[in-house]
């Protein structure tokens, strides 16, 4: 159910951006899936497939889901580490006092659209 709400919000964001760009049709949408979002990618893809039918510009759009790792900053040594598994630890000093900088997002990154020639 979580993935359905996320897919709905993704479609809203993508549709607003397509409209703002004057797109006739959307070919491809790149979506960054932060690892810490705990999103089931298959489920998200499924809902996007279903929902795009309600948006005329998106009927043939392809959604590319790209996993995005978590980025951590170590409070002890200051190093930044990418991580896609638990536990969250610093890659440099193995310390566990880390701050999550990113990786908890689900983001519409960019879209390839068709625009009518003027």
């Amino acid at each position, binding site marked *: 159910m979580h993935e359905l709400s996320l897919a709905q919000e993704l479609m809203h964001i993508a549709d607003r951006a397509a409209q703002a760009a004057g797109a006739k049709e959307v070919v491809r949408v790149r979506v960054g899936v932060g690892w810490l979002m705990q999103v089931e990618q298959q489920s998200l893809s499924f809902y996007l497939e279903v929902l795009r039918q309600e948006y005329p510009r998106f009927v043939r759009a392809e959604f590319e889901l790209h996993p995005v790792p978590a980025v951590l900053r170590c409070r002890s040594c200051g190093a930044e580490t990418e991580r896609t598994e*638990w536990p969250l630890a610093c890659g440099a000093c193995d310390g566990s006092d880390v701050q999550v900088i990113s990786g908890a*997002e689900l*983001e*519409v990154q960019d879209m390839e*659209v068709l625009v009518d020639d003027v």
Partner: protein
Amino acid sequence: MCETAGSAEGHHHHVVEVHHHVMEANDQIAGRMRQSFAARGVAVLNLISSPGSGKTALLERTLERLKPMRVGVLVGDVETENDAQRLRRYGYPVAQIVTAGTCHLEAQMIESHLPAVEQRDLDLLIIENVGNLVCPTSYDLGEDAKVVLLSTTEGEDKPVKYPAIFHRAELALLTKVDLMPHLDFDRDLLLRNIEQVHPGMTVLEVSSKTGEGLDAWLGWITAKVSEKQKRLV
């Protein structure tokens, strides 16, 4: 914002940079509420656990003993008003949020139900989220702290199976500790598992049945409330 990527008959391809997050709409409302809570000195707790871990029973014991603190409660469930009815007996304003299928509470649901519990000034707002250890983790509700509950009957490996919520929450409550003598529950293993995903996390052990550990839990809440009100002065 656009760059041309190619062209064909009558139309051309553009790449549109978007970079918008799905949580933006939720986070905006949550941010607005957090500001308003801060301006009025209202502490907000977001209680998260799997169904049946004893959130409502613990809240009953908690509300009983929080007087004269001014408390409001928002309870999320997929269906029924059962929990709100249980909690209303303690004389505090309680509103049930029926999500009708949605597996978590969102900031906009909190904002629209606030008037029902904020008829007078509050010191503390307690939000009992929908029973679920996954989805509620990502939704900011404007709270000061997420509190994760786990009962002794659920097994010691919950923190490593659902690490994100244990990482995000400030406090873990181990509930139903009165049952421990009857279970093969390895308390040290649980604490090690929590330590693995959230080093240094505060863990309190409570029993709503016997009252064990409630003083520490009430003390933790009271500290949160006075901390919030101190920032007002």
